[in-house]
């Protein structure tokens, strides 16, 4: 295989990796602050994508033709804000009331919530069971670097994703909210003794994770030019796997896990050229092998020392 083709695959893999990382960070944040798995997360990705789609339709029916870059910004911000709100509401009314209950109950209730979201989109969005075209808002062109083709849209989406991931890193490490999230994740009791509001921190964490899910949904829609009501199932499974590979509770692990999963899919697609449809089978199989090798994940959350 020549270098240009390899670079092309690496670029596509990086694109997928960014999407998966954005989804996985949500899983790991929720687990970090409340030790819960929120199984509706994939469907929030899908709802974010549909919110973006509906916003773009609303925009063009209200204002006629809108410059595409304004449309992209409005769509993204609307979807992110709407899902942040949805995430905070779900935390407030579904997850926090079950805080003292067994975590399995949270898993069940969010699984149900995810199904409700998915089926509602299928039933109530006009012809929701069909795949929907997502508007192509990013410039079409491409630059040829030797034999490597760099599409402008991929480059822009990659940049958006990387900026979001760096933004999350800065938020977690540099801000007051980030310190509160890290403190609540490690020891909620000590955090509240230090004056950190537990519930507000949890709500903000769920808003953050769900906003990132919406971003992943919109980026996914812009990249594939198509969304459908069941896209959240696979994205949710991948995001969850990525978070677990990296070590649940560790933000950097989730990002790493997202890129590893994308790399596995890409390798699967390249190594099995006659059967690239099996790339997910290959990638999930590799995840099973990874789990057997490192049951706690690659960057496991260090268990608190007891003194």
């Amino acid at each position, binding site marked *: 295989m020549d270098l240009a083709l390899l670079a092309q695959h690496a670029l596509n893999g990086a694109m997928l990796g960014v999407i998966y990382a954005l989804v996985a960070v949500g899983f790991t944040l929720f687990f970090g602050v409340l030790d819960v798995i929120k199984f509706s997360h994939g469907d929030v990705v899908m709802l974010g994508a549909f919110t973006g789609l509906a916003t773009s339709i609303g925009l063009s029916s209200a204002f006629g033709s809108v410059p595409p870059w304004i449309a992209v910004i409005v769509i993204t911000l609307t979807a992110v804000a709407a899902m942040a709100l949805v995430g905070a509401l779900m935390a407030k009314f579904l997850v926090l009331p079950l805080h003292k209950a067994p975590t399995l109950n949270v898993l069940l209730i969010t699984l149900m919530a995810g199904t409700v979201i998915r089926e509602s989109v299928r039933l109530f969005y006009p012809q929701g069971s069909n795949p929907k075209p997502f508007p192509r808002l990013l410039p079409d062109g491409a630059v040829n670097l030797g034999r490597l083709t760099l599409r402008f849209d991929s480059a822009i989406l990659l940049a958006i994703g990387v900026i979001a991931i760096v933004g999350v890193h800065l938020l977690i490490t540099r801000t*007051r909210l980030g310190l509160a999230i890290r403190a609540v994740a490690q*020891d909620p009791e000590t955090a*509240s*003794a230090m004056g950190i509001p537990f519930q507000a921190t949890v709500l903000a964490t769920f808003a953050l994770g769900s906003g990132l899910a919406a971003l992943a949904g919109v980026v996914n829609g812009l990249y594939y030019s198509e969304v459908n009501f069941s896209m959240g199932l696979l994205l949710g499974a991948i995001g969850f796997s990525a978070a677990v590979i990296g070590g649940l509770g560790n933000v950097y692990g989730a990002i790493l896990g997202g890129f590893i999963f994308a790399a596995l899919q890409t390798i699967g697609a390249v190594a099995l050229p006659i059967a690239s449809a099996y790339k997910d089978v290959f990638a999930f199989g590799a995840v099973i092998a990874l789990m057997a090798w490192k049951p706690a994940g690659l960057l496991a959350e260090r268990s608190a*020392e007891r003194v």
Partner: protein
Amino acid sequence: MSTALLDATGLSVRFGGVRALDGLDLHVGEGEVIGLIGPNGSGKTTFFNTLTGFVFPADGRVTFAGEDITALPAREVAKRGIARTFQRLRLLLELSVFDNLMLGQHLSLDHGVWANIVARGGLRRSLEKQRETARALLRYFSDSLPDRLSEPAGSLTMIDRRRVEVCRALIRDPKLLLLDEPSAGMTPDETRELMQDLQSVKAERPALAVVLIEHDMEVIESVSHRCVVLDYGRKLCEGSYSEVSQDPAVRRAYLGVEDE
């Protein structure tokens, strides 16, 4: 009696059938240092937990600086100026020393999201100021700690962790400091050193009141103005160290000494 800072009256806490606190009255004046002693299970830590909003009493009330704080949750109590340490150290070991200290003053931090985006210069200055405050406080307790602000708290020795925890409580400039057995896990020399360092902080903050739970009677004798002895959630007696240590009931219950 000195000006009342904290007044607990008739505090009762029950865990199932056990009376962890049974009608406890305690008065803490401004600037006072009180030694709280009693056998294991006598309700000392429960008393701290009740004051700081971790446990809510079945009966009785707590007023702090004239305000009823009985039903306030932990973070509200923290806001009003009661800081504490824990018997089993509760530093967040994966966070840096500086981040742990910042937790102690989380309420007064101004580095929100917007400050990070639009006011980075001001943010850097305020962070540097906070680092300087942290270093100055740590310097009371150790010469080497101020240089280790960015290391994870988990990398410190036991005594350094204890010192950082005390600084985390002090950095917010509390009116009342609750120390839950600071000598646990430390050698007598280390304890004595910690107490001396604490005394020098106290010398500069005369209004700071301290309640200290401690098993080491020498420590109690050297630092406390007044001793309160608990037994089965009740106040067994109260007074200066020499009064308390001569009390026959105390000698029976706590020191395990039979009257001859």
